[in-house]
């Protein structure tokens, strides 16, 4: 199980994943070798799986972001699998999430502008299988996005 030091290491690393292990050790008042051992253990246990670069699609010219909340036709037993497999083929789909609740699947879709979005929506999204209903939420601003866990 995780102890207090593991949690402190992860908390600090979460706020700045790019920092070096010696810096991390200094900040926590722990030796570099001790931090290294703890990180190795967290990786071996599968707690720490790695780190990923976060891309700002707006800076690449994708000004539009839409959250599509999809309800599927659940009388089709393969509805989820077939819908998700087809959604993966649309390059502008950034996230595919499935839910328990009023919404079955949510797609996060980006586009260069509204004309481009309309094209993706008509030629891509509306041709996906087993859709019963779609609601769109247009993204205005990201207020908080650290995705950190309250460790």
């Amino acid at each position, binding site marked *: 199980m995780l102890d207090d030091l593991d949690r402190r290491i992860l908390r600090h690393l979460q706020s700045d994943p790019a920092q070096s292990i010696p810096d991390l050790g200094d900040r926590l008042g722990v030796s570099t070798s001790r931090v290294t051992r703890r990180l190795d253990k967290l990786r071996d246990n599968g707690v720490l799986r790695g*780190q990923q*670069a976060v891309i700002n699609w707006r800076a690449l010219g994708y000004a539009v972001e839409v959250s599509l909340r999809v309800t599927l036709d659940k009388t089709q037993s393969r509805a989820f699998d077939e819908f998700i497999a087809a959604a993966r083929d649309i390059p502008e789909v950034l996230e595919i999430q499935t*839910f328990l609740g009023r919404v079955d699947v949510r797609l996060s879709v980006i586009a260069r502008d509204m004309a481009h979005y309309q094209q993706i929506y008509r030629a891509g999204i509306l041709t996906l299988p087993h859709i019963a209903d779609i609601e769109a939420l247009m993204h205005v601003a990201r207020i908080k996005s650290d*995705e950190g866990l309250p460790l």
Partner: protein
Amino acid sequence: MMDTDDIDHQLLRALALDASQSAGALGRKFGLSQPATWRRIKRLTEAGVIVGRRLDLDREKLGFGVTVFLGIKLATKGRVSLDDFERAVSAIPEVQTVEHVLGMYDYRLRVTARDIADFERVLRRRVMTLPGVGDVEANVLLSEERRPGPLG
């Protein structure tokens, strides 16, 4: 908007999967020298295309078994109440993301909790007591997958 080429896209794709790769290792993959790779990454970072890194943690192993997305409709609108709401909601540690949206809801929140009972505590004590909260819809996350995006 920054002009990017195929090699930039390949670098972004690789870094979005694993940001810990060194410029040397990435360069070897794409037939670039270490300094050339480093310069490209620096350029992408300075142009704001790469905005940082995200630690990939196994939430369940850390005891956070439940992720819920909340759609929130504000009961009262106006500039002041939006600012107040955003400040208060961002201060809740269990709230991981806050997005201002247009449509049937005003805000979309990603909330993490230890279990459903813990989520109920966060919902009742912290979210429902926020200034201006109206309708709230909750959907429990079952699975999620991040795609590489249009980098091809």
